[in-house]
């Protein structure tokens, strides 16, 4: 899975997230209240408490007594003005960029679909967000500068309505543009990736011996290659019955139609690519590790690579990675197998045959009684997704046993996980049923991965192995990709409009751009602050900008201790202030990088409803606070001063 972060589940996320939101809201209200009171004190002296109370009271009333009709009118005005400013030019710009995209999008690359999707989604992202930031930065300050705001504020209009109306108007404009781009980009991607191959029947070679078919005729399996198109070709098979099949290559295959002429000549017609634009539905499990001595541990071992978020297991030892999946139901998987996909990291302590992958084994275990079988041995290469199938009826297996799990406590005592007894006859069965024999009564099943080669290691994190529950519509997934951009856009608008309630156009523009860029790099910002590249994975050091600059200038690596001079101490003191400030900032600035789904769409993963809901609620939470803040900022501002 290319998404190297923990994906939140709505049910477990909502409670803590709400509490965090509530505490942030209370903190913000307290801070703003304090600033507001000091401001009143400065302006009104002894009358400050009364003035502050009046402002607060009427401010809260105005926040509640809003009229949808007024908000609608203000949103309509914003839309009208935006279209008056010719925002549709952005759509034209997008179309022009698509027209020239053929010059630089290389369909012969190894993953052209990723290239195309990254291009259309990335272009849309930058264009739309830049557009709405500009619109938001000019909207309210423009009204104040032109004094048109006078004729609005002298009507019974609440400032909360102005802020909400403008946000809604800009969101409507952005949605229209995004929707248009979505509609345009879908055929662009599909048609751009469309290709086919030709197969010359004369080039097909016999595969194996001829076989006698049920009707008594002789059949011969054939194999060969399609002709190369866009830098690749597919292996082509025809079984003894004459049914053709095209092998998967570069993430896609092709449908084949067999045409027979009157003289019995066979022609194979290949269709467009299939399986390239998909939306896989992954089911994730939880991950624990077993160390080389057979004890359960939270993490595997570190191989000294500070840039990875994976934990490693040692080859040819008891070490294993154990994924536990919950609530798997047979009817979710219509075929005879349950497909799994994994993307394991490989760390070699000796080179071996570099062309060959490292061998590993896949086992399933019932967490209730410990019954375990090894299903297959696989070969894993780094940077490639390996697809395996777990049969529902297990007939080929090895090493049937009851595998206990144990934990070693800090005081040295060993605790075994209690298991239900297994009927000894089960151990001699020749066939197992995955759901009957390996699924616990509460619907859990364990998948174990081991590295089989001594001196080699497999690295993994939770999202690296998942069960593929099927595919969803790519069209809808592309829509979700645009929905991710829409969520980022809504936040950019929210910040733009709120900042514009107390800042002028140029400062609003720069501030909103700053918030958006910082939001897009939110994870990086947190990494700098916490010194962790990934949750739980620490960097060797946590430096601020000055010490980093000193190390850059003196060419000292991050692992090198530099002399603790007074200068260094001063630099570190200043850095600690900077890091504290950055820490605070990282809680205020929204994690906009997590809102987007471009990687999901480009890598062919379905955006789950749970993740979608989490992101929508996150944006709504920010938006509520932004509207409240914008309302009070605008209300306390003398627009006519």
């Amino acid at each position, binding site marked *: 899975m290319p998404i190297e972060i923990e994906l939140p589940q709505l049910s477990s996320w909502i409670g803590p997230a709400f509490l965090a939101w509530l505490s942030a809201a209370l903190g913000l209200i307290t801070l703003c209240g304090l600033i507001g009171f000091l401001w009143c004190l*400065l302006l009104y002296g002894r009358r400050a408490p009364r003035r502050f109370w009046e402002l607060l009271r009427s401010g809260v009333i105005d926040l509640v007594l809003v009229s949808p*009709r*007024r908000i609608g009118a203000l949103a309509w005005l914003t839309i009208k003005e935006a279209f008056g400013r010719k925002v549709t030019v952005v759509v034209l710009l997008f179309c022009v960029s698509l027209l020239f995209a053929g010059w630089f999008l290389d369909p012969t690359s190894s993953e052209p679909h990723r290239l195309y999707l990254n291009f259309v989604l990335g272009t849309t992202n930058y264009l739309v967000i830049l557009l709405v930031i500009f619109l938001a930065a000019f909207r309210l300050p423009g009204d104040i500068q032109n004094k048109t705001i006078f004729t609005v*504020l002298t009507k019974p209009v609440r400032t909360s309505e102005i802020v909400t109306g403008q946000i809604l108007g800009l969101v409507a404009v952005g949605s229209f543009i995004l929707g248009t781009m979505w509609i345009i980009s879908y055929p662009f991607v599909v048609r751009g990736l469309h290709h086919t191959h030709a197969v010359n029947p004369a080039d097909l070679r016999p595969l194996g011996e001829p076989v006698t078919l049920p009707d008594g005729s002789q059949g011969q399996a054939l194999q060969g290659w399609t002709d190369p198109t866009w830098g690749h070709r597919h292996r082509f098979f025809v079984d003894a019955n004459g049914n053709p099949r095209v092998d998967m290559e570069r993430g896609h295959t092709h449908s084949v139609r067999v045409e027979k002429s009157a003289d019995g000549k066979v022609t194979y017609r290949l269709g467009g690519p299939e399986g390239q634009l998909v939306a896989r539905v992954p089911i994730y499990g939880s991950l624990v590790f077993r160390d080389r001595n057979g004890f359960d541990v939270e993490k595997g071992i570190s191989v000294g690579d500070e840039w990875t978020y994976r934990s490693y297991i040692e080859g040819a030892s008891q070490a294993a990675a154990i994924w536990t999946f919950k609530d798997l139901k047979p009817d979710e998987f219509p075929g005879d197998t349950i497909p799994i996909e994994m993307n394991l990291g490989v760390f070699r302590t000796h080179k071996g045959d570099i062309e060959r992958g490292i061998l590993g084994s896949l086992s399933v275990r019932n967490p209730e009684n410990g019954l375990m079988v090894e299903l297959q041995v696989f070969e894993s290469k780094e940077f490639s997704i390996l697809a395996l199938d777990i049969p529902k009826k297990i007939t080929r297996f090895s090493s049937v046993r009851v595998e206990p799990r144990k934990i070693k406590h800090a005081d040295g005592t060993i605790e075994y996980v209690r298991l239900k007894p297994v009927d000894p006859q089960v151990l001699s069965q020749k066939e197992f049923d995955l759901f009957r024999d390996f699924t616990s009564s509460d619907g859990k099943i364990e998948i174990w991965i081991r590295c089989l080669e001594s001196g080699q290691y497999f690295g993994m994190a939770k999202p690296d192995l998942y069960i593929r529950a099927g595919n969803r519509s790519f069209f809808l997934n592309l829509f979700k990709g645009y929905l991710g951009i829409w969520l980022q856009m809504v936040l950019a608008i929210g910040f733009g409009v709120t900042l514009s309630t107390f800042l002028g156009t140029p400062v609003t523009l720069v501030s909103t751009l700053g918030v958006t860029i910082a939001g897009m790099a939110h994870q990086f910002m947190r990494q700098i602050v916490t010194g962790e590249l990934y949750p739980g994975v620490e960097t060797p050091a946590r430096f601020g900008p000055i010490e980093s600059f000193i190390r850059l200038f003196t060419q000292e690596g991050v692992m090198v201790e530099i002399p603790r001079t007074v200068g260094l101490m001063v630099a570190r003191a200043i850095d600690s202030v900077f890091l504290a400030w950055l820490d605070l900032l990282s809680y205020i600035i929204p994690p906009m990088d997590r809102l987007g789904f471009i990687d999901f769409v480009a890598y062919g993963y379905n955006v789950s409803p749970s993740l979608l809901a989490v992101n929508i609620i996150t944006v709504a939470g920010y938006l509520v606070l932004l509207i409240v803040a914008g309302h009070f900022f605008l209300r306390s501002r003398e627009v006519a001063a």
Partner: protein
Amino acid sequence: MSEAQVSPAARPSETGQSPPEVVIETRTLSKVYRDFWGRTKVQALKALDLQIYRGEVFGLLGPNGSGKTTTMKLLLGLLLPTSGEVYVFGRPATDVSKNERIGYLPEESYLYRFLNAEETLDFYGRLFNMPRSVRRQRVADLIEMVGLTWAKKRPLKEYSKGMTRRIGLAQALINDPDLILLDEPTSGLDPIGTREMKDLILRLRDQGKTVVMCSHLLADVQDVCDRIGILYQGELKELGRVDQLLAMRDVTEIRVPRMSPEAESEVKAVLAKHGLEILSWGNPTTTLEHLFLRIIRESEEHPGLRAHGRGDGHADRN
């Protein structure tokens, strides 16, 4: 609304007499403009005490920078007072709900130039939460009233200044307000437009509405205002009824039609007998506004009539 926030003047009289309803009240209202560092830039208004009653046309006079517009903005809640209090309809000026009964025409018609007249009025109607059917009727009536039916579909950016003022006035009246605040209402209008604006102000007063206007065009104020306040350097220098303030009690003016030379001699003799000095004697002149309006009216009645390029002595006595 809490008791503390109701203007005392808006409360029923304790004596049982019903005083004129106070629509606007300011109490030691002051406004200081400060720079970024909080230093005083200018004291725009100094301790203004003012009461404006229902049904009157009140004029705020003063030279540029005297504090007229600042007062207007304080009344509208667009500015916050540095000290003192402002009440409109008995509510603090910062209370948004007071705007339900207010119409405001700013000095320049600050309107959205990309909207046409219909859209403009419909938009402001929606801000008053008016239902669609009511809005539609009101918009049509107001556009007709200001004489812009022929241009109602044209965007305001194509309007002349006079047309913009008219649509600005229409937006100020969209909610049929009880209090109309007009900042330099005749600015940018031609004499006909000025006359129509003044007639409208008087009509509004006759309907029982309160009009507050500020202007430095003294003739306009004199024509329509019942009471005036004169501001200078942020201080209220004079306040009272126009007719009382302008009356010259130690000078007598007699106007008679077509006085004969004999009668003129006799009158002069009588005045001399009583030892009265004649300050001026002659034919009164009309205002340029009256002359202009008469010529336009006659031109409309008799197209083709040419000017003679001389005064004909037929000044309108009205």
